[in-house]
């Protein structure tokens, strides 16, 4: 998460002090991402070095501190606008521990994959229950907070859905006579191009990078 750009965004409204920036940062992110004031000052220093912010009414170059206010520069505004429009790189799937565990569980003899899936599903839903409880007394006044909670719930929900789909796929495969041993044999049946890593039965196709 870019503290740098979040601070630029806050300064785009008006000049502000470091402490004020910290408070507003936390309020604008639904108080879900705490930020210590040291981080704020270090970031401000770097932004100043890069010419994206400037100290207000400051004659001698003092250390950043509570007494010092900052304003955004034109270069800072341009940088902020540019950052907002630049899409983050999502082309490569993240190395997801949970996905890896399920992929591996499918291969390990004597492991009940459904049990592994259910353990993860239960944990995810317990987390979702906690997030939902935060919504209970929410009257919708804190928009940032509501957006953060939604985003977490959708993220966790997508993992639950993937587990549901994985379980369904596994059941159908098992009903069709699939077993871990067969699965491995199936992967070996097609040596050729994608067998660079010996013995690895996990998917090897290159994903993403479509531009």
């Amino acid at each position, binding site marked *: 998460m870019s503290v740098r750009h979040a601070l630029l965004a806050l300064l785009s409204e008006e000049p502000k002090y470091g402490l004020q920036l910290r408070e507003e940062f936390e309020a604008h992110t639904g108080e879900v991402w705490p930020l210590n004031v040291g981080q704020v000052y270090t970031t401000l220093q770097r932004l100043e070095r890069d010419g994206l912010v400037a100290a207000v009414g400051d004659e001698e170059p003092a250390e950043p501190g509570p007494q010092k206010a900052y304003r955004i520069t034109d270069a800072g505004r341009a940088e902020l606008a540019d950052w907002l429009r630049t899409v983050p790189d999502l082309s490569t799937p993240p190395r997801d521990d949970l996905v890896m565990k399920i992929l591996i569980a499918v291969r390990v003899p004597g492991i009940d994959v*459904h049990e592994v899936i259910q353990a993860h599903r*239960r944990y995810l839903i317990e*987390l979702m229950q*906690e997030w939902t409880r935060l919504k209970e007394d929410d009257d919708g006044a804190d928009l940032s907070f509501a957006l953060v909670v939604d985003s977490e719930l959708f993220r966790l929900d997508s993992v639950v859905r993937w587990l549901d789909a994985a379980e369904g796929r596994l059941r159908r495969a098992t009903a069709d006579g699939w077993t871990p041993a067969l699965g491995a044999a199936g992967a070996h049946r097609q040596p050729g191009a994608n067998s660079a890593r010996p013995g690895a039965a996990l998917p090897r196709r290159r994903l993403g990078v479509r531009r």
Partner: protein
Amino acid sequence: MMSKGQAVLELRSISKVYGRGAAEVQALRDVSLGVAQGEMVAVMGPSGSGKSSLLTIAGTLEDPTSGAVLVKGEDTLRMSGGAKSRIRRRTIGYVFQDFNLLPGLTAAENVSLPLELDGTSMRKAHLAALKALDELGLGSQARRFPDQLSGGERQRVAIARAVVGERSLLLADEPSGALDSANGEAVMRLIHTYCKRGTAAVVVTHDAQLASWADRVVFLRDGRVADQTAAPAGPETLLEQPS
């Protein structure tokens, strides 16, 4: 008067078999589930896992093949047909995915109908219906017919009908299945609110976001209770960050 936390619904070792011989389907196997007053339980599971059977049996709309169903401590399988109907009219409220409102009746008439069927005078039933609709923000829609209401409004009318007369057990089968996410959430929020006031609820849903409104989530698989979530922790645990 029941004390807080007492079981409103108790399923004891329920099994349900449909069909015979080669066509036999075991929908539920030895399912036990208690739902306390004020508790909201969500039931999740893949299709065919027995969710709907569990709900129809809990609602006394169908008998289990074996086991016992207790509503407010009374064994419904030992009741006369009349006594069972009374329980269905007075104690249990049902909410369905497709709302099941009667198209020829206004919103208020749909809500007052179960009270009237139970012998409440038309005037009293009407007033109770208006009050229930008002609480759900539908006071101004009381005279409209279902086809003049949006999907979200229809489901809220259905919820008003399910809770009118202070019923203690709410059973809902995919209550937000036909709604968009905002309306779906509104429905769960409502059921949650009624539970906080003391209603017990069982909500069948395949949607994890909706299920997470429940105090407890029960997972069915192949007709068995495969798992359930732990007792709720306080919401503050999430926001405790390692600094």
